[in-house]
């Protein structure tokens, strides 16, 4: 049984068909690269899985049972965590505060509950260590490098031990050295049994960390292949339309 199963997912905005009949399955511990040119429908598909909006038609199943995500929180409650392209971090807060944003650890003193800073710093430090990142829990996010910010955003997804982590262009705006750091983070997610969907423009990244690659073109899925059975040249051809489908 697949962890996540999309069946005939279609999304129309008025007369524009952003997605047409997308089928996609992901199993535990599997990393799938989602590729396609600008406007191919990657973001739309991401947002449907993330619960930003409902599909016009089609079904989403998690572990075999059908789900309807009306809000991002619904997706999160079903074990799907998202790392947004802009990372959705608060620059004015510490790394630990961002990791626990909306899920703060509290202590009780009589009827008063208050933030347990110590516990949050420790737990965040533990998560960063697991990710082998040198991010310091007490530093403000605005002082951090792009790679460290990624680590904060990824550490946040690990709080709830999700089944699936969705990553939107995690390597788009950072330096080469930091890209390696982020790819390592994705490897660690896979090692601990998490499924990952990686939306990326960067061919080398997808070929390095993903097991499978799905290619979208003009709202339809034109290919879904094991990485070992394809090549960057073929995927490029599929994205641009030089190769019809595979």
């Amino acid at each position, binding site marked *: 049984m697949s962890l996540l199963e999309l069946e005939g997912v279609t999304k129309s905005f008025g007369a524009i068909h952003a997605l047409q009949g997308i089928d996609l399955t992901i199993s535990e511990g599997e990393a799938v690269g989602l590729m396609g040119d600008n406007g191919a429908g990657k973001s739309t598909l991401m947002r449907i899985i993330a619960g930003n909006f409902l599909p016009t038609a089609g079904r989403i199943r998690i572990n075999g049972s059908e789900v309807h995500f009306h809000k991002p929180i619904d997706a999160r409650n079903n074990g799907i965590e998202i790392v947004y392209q802009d990372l959705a971090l*608060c*620059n004015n807060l510490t790394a630990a505060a961002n990791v626990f*944003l*909306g899920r703060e650890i509290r202590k009780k003193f009589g009827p008063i509950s208050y933030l347990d800073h110590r516990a949050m710093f420790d737990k965040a430090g533990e998560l960063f260590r697991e990710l082998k990142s040198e991010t*310091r829990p007490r530093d403000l996010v605005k002082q951090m490098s792009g790679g460290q910010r990624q680590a904060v955003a990824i550490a946040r997804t690990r709080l709830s031990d999700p089944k699936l982590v969705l990553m939107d262009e995690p390597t788009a705006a950072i330096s080469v050295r930091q890209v390696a750091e982020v790819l390592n983070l994705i490897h660690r997610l896979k090692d601990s049994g998490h499924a990952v969907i990686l939306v990326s423009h960067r061919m080398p990244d997808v070929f390095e960390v993903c097991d499978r690659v799905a290619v979208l073109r003009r709202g339809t899925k034109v290919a879904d292949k094991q990485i070992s059975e394809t090549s960057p040249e073929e995927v490029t051809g599929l994205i641009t339309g030089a190769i019809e489908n595979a």
Partner: protein
Amino acid sequence: MTDTTQKSHAEIDESITSRQEMSGLQAALKTQPFWVFVALIAIAVVMSFVSDVFLTERNFFNITRNFAFFGIMALGMSAVICTAGIDLSVGSLMGLAGIVTGLVMQAGYGIGFGFFACMGAAAIVGLINGVLIAYLRMAPFVVTLGMLAMSRSIAMVISNNKMIYDFGPDQDLFEWIGGESVFGVPNPVWVLMILTVVFWWVWRYSTWGRWVIAIGGNADAAKLAGIPVERVIVSVYVLCSCCAGLAAFLLVGWFGSVTNALGLTYELNVIAATVIGGANLMGGVVYAFGAPIGAALMELIRNSLLLAGIDALWQQFFVGLFLILAVLLEQIRNRGRS
């Protein structure tokens, strides 16, 4: 051998976890309220040479009481400004809340009911502001500017443009709360001190405080993290209005009378005090101690000019000057950091 390397790795990890850019004192040195406080002390030292009256107990009593009202309002305003909002209606709201308190108590109701009516009127105005801003996504400046005009107008209508000086059966208690002192410290100053400590706790230890700061930093991120952004914003405006209502309650008790002109143009002083105290209009920055320190600086300027024999007409000039200098100081410090 392996054991020791293992251990040293754990130690390094531990040191990374607990490492911080700076210690608590160094962190305090980097905040705006600290430097405004230094300016406060500097002015006080200079004034102690200029005027014999300055260091007297009587003068300190007056200074602290005068800025207490602004300080209380600035505490609420700093919460609003932390969300990148603004509340221009607090001055008019003082007039409205003061008149409502006066009318209710004049009608023979006790002080408990008077206080309840005062805070109720304030909370309703704050609620309207908050709902329009959070749910209808209107600009805070425009909404509260409209409310500035409406609150003042309602205060004029319900007061029938008359002064109220009869506060019914609890008149003495009412005037004691606003006008008298306990252990030599004016009651409004006690209120300010207690509220400052409460706000300090809220900003540092409460989930609500953390959420307000997060919304000021990145409202979209806060929303995606599952924080009920709209409800928090409404609560912030209600809180700010309640602070203004509380200040009005104390101020009317001190004056012993109320007209519908109470709090006229106070919003500008309150915003100035908040900004001098380190609030950033772009949001995401809040200091509990900034509000009273900013309010204190403004009152100190006024008092100093008076004692130094400088024409009172200069007062607004210096308040404005310090406001601009405070913002300039923050700009310069930020530039040095990045």
